[in-house]
């Protein structure tokens, strides 16, 4: 009986000692203002007819979606440039004409970001946005490539680059 009580006391003491000796482990972090460019969808060309490649949904393609996250207002410009040529392609039989456009597809703050689309500056294939509010903005970029002379695109792989830039003001 005495031994059982002693053992119980010892175990209890050990348990309490272990509980008391637990230490806190801090998780440190630093918050800095930043701009993050997030590629939600790189986009895909569809081939609705022999002489057209298009990212349009009805053409079997997918538009590119890029998200900009900013944590400081009035500190960044977003500049998104639709492609004006292929970065890789088979040998082409004629000149290809590119058209493209970028629009704001969604925002995290409708009040602060509601004027982004109306206030954008278009510089050729590049669209420049002044990111005046903090939060996330989703931009959708479409691209269409049309082969000259109604000639067909040769079989093979085609890649065109969209450039998404976040420039500190």
């Amino acid at each position: 009986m005495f031994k059982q009580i002693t053992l119980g006391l010892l175990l209890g003491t050990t348990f309490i000692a272990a509980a008391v000796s637990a230490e806190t482990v801090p998780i440190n972090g630093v918050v800095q203002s930043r701009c993050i460019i997030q590629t939600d969808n790189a986009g895909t060309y569809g081939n609705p007819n022999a002489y057209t490649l298009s990212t349009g949904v009805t053409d079997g393609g997918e538009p590119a979606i890029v998200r900009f996250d900013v944590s400081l207002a009035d500190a960044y410009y977003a500049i998104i440039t639709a492609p004006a040529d292929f970065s890789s392609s088979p040998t082409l039989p004629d000149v290809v004409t590119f058209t493209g456009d970028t629009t704001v597809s969604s925002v995290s703050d409708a009040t602060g970001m509601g004027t982004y689309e109306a206030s954008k500056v278009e510089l050729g294939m590049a669209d420049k946005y002044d990111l005046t509010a903090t939060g996330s903005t989703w931009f959708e970029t479409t691209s269409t490539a049309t082969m000259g002379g109604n000639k067909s695109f040769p079989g093979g792989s085609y890649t065109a680059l969209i450039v998404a830039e976040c420039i500190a003001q």
Partner: protein
Amino acid sequence: MLANVASAHEMTPTYPKLTPSAYDGIYKTTMKMFNKRVDIQYYEVGVFDKDFNTVPFVTSYSVLKIDYLSHVTFDIYIRENDVAKAVYVCSKSKIRIEDIRRTAISSRICSKFKND
């Protein structure tokens, strides 16, 4: 489907400062990058003036290999004579050719030097 893949590029600080380094006539700043783009492993670093003309600088590698979900801290050294010209430090993703019919997104983030 890429919509749910973490795929982001970030560089901090937004407003780095150039401070004298241990070498005479050379200024230095430290930048940090985080690669959350699963499709990108390499980023090119550049220093530019207000019109995006290149400004001479030195860093360990002008093209940095940054594995997915990795952080890299790197120093940039600029001659004292070029400090007034240097306005932006930018990192740009480098994309490899792939055998698929698609568009690809090249991301570029530019921080702006703000010196006292």
